[in-house]
């Protein structure tokens, strides 16, 4: 028990003393996850809108597959990407393995189905009367779609935040394709796993506290966004 308390107090001191290595890891984590989230959102939102507005054969099957991919095992994604990016793989010539770019690709793959499916769900949940009302006011098809997306905005924001939660907490895929190289591809989650293995609990705990704080912040934001959306809809 004493060792836990001791490790915890050292972790707090690491955070308060603005330890350079610690902050370097945090910044890289935020950079990788942030970029992956932006990419997943830029790809996922149009995909969600397409699935929500267009009728085409096998649309239901595509939605079902994407729903299944929401639970993609990160290690499986990491392995698949490793095989693609390794020197002998089909994309080996790009020399992306063990780079932050490979980690961003892995996290984008993991966040994309979440952003897409939850946004799609928000879009199709919008009352059909909104579409009709926009049409009666002279909106073009594109403007009608924009109106529906605007009405689904709280659900879409929730989808993006859920995607952020997924990528921030991810370890399996980025460990495989990033390699956990100090100062280059080492991020919070991979550091925690490694430092725990080494028995160096101070840094692991410090990062754990920060990761938990970020997670709490994400969840609180999600809560307030959903509350605001629900309040509007209930009025």
């Amino acid at each position, binding site marked *: 028990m004493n060792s836990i308390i001791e490790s915890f107090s050292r972790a707090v001191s690491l955070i308060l003393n603005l330890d350079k290595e610690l902050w370097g890891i945090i910044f890289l984590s935020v950079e990788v996850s942030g970029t992956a989230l932006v990419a997943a959102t830029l790809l996922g939102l149009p995909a969600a809108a397409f699935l929500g507005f267009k009728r085409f054969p096998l649309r239901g099957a595509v939605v079902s597959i994407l729903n299944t991919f929401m639970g993609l095992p990160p290690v499986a994604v990491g392995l698949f990407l490793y095989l693609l990016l390794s020197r002998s793989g089909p994309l080996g010539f790009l020399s992306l393995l063990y780079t932050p770019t490979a980690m961003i690709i892995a996290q984008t793959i993991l966040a994309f189905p979440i952003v897409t499916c939850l946004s799609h769900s928000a879009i199709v949940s919008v*009352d059909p*009367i*909104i579409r*009709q*009302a*926009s*049409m*009666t*006011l*002279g*909106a*073009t098809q594109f*403007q009608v779609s924009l*109106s529906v997306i*605007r*009405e689904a905005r709280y659900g879409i924001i929730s989808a993006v935040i859920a995607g952020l939660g997924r990528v921030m907490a991810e370890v399996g895929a980025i460990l495989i394709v990033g390699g956990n190289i100090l100062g280059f591809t080492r991020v919070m989650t991979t550091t925690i796993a490694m430092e725990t293995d080494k028995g160096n609990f101070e840094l692991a705990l410090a990062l754990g506290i920060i990761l938990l704080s970020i997670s709490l912040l994400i969840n609180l934001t999600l809560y307030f966004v959903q509350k605001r959306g629900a309040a*509007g*809809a209930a*009025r």
Partner: protein
Amino acid sequence: MSLGMEATKVAKTYNGNSVLRDCSYSFRPPGVYILTGPNGCGKSTFLRIAALIEQPDSGTIGFFSDDKRVDADLRLKRKITLVLPKVGVFNTSVFKNVAYGLTIRGIGKQETEEKVKKVLEFVQLSHKTRQNALTLSSGETQRLGIARALVMGPDILFLDEPTASVDQKNSRIIEEILLKMKQESGPTVIMTTHDQSQAKRLADTLLVIRDGVLAAEKGPK
């Protein structure tokens, strides 16, 4: 330019049930045309078809300006508007709801503000301008729907049962709005109602749909 509309042998069937069989009528501007008939007779269906929201199974809807036929393109669609019984308000302020039609037409900010302000006064909703539209009562929501349509200065305003789900006070206000529109040479109004006394109070021309056929009962005055 005043827009007229002509329905020719409009027919519509839902799930094998023939709702409209032969609806033909020439709606000439200006005036208030009221469509009545029992529940389920096809009044709303006819209105949605006339407002180009729905396609008829057979027959045509044609629009005329100075006796010349007008193509049913976006320009025409922006000169006619339908207020649905369930208005479908956006989850934003009353102002932004009313401004919607002007915004999508690329109207400038100042002109939009002036027009929205004027129309909100007209429907007696000025005091609710900044309020979220989802918080309005059903009567106020109907008035919002009318304001949202009127702000665009349509040539033809279709109203589908605007007083069906509102209280007496709001029903009276909506009637006052329609009468004021008539006095101020507003758009041609084509409206459905199942309230016979209201129909008689408001109509220049009273129409009835019976057994899927549209017929004139009274007017034009």
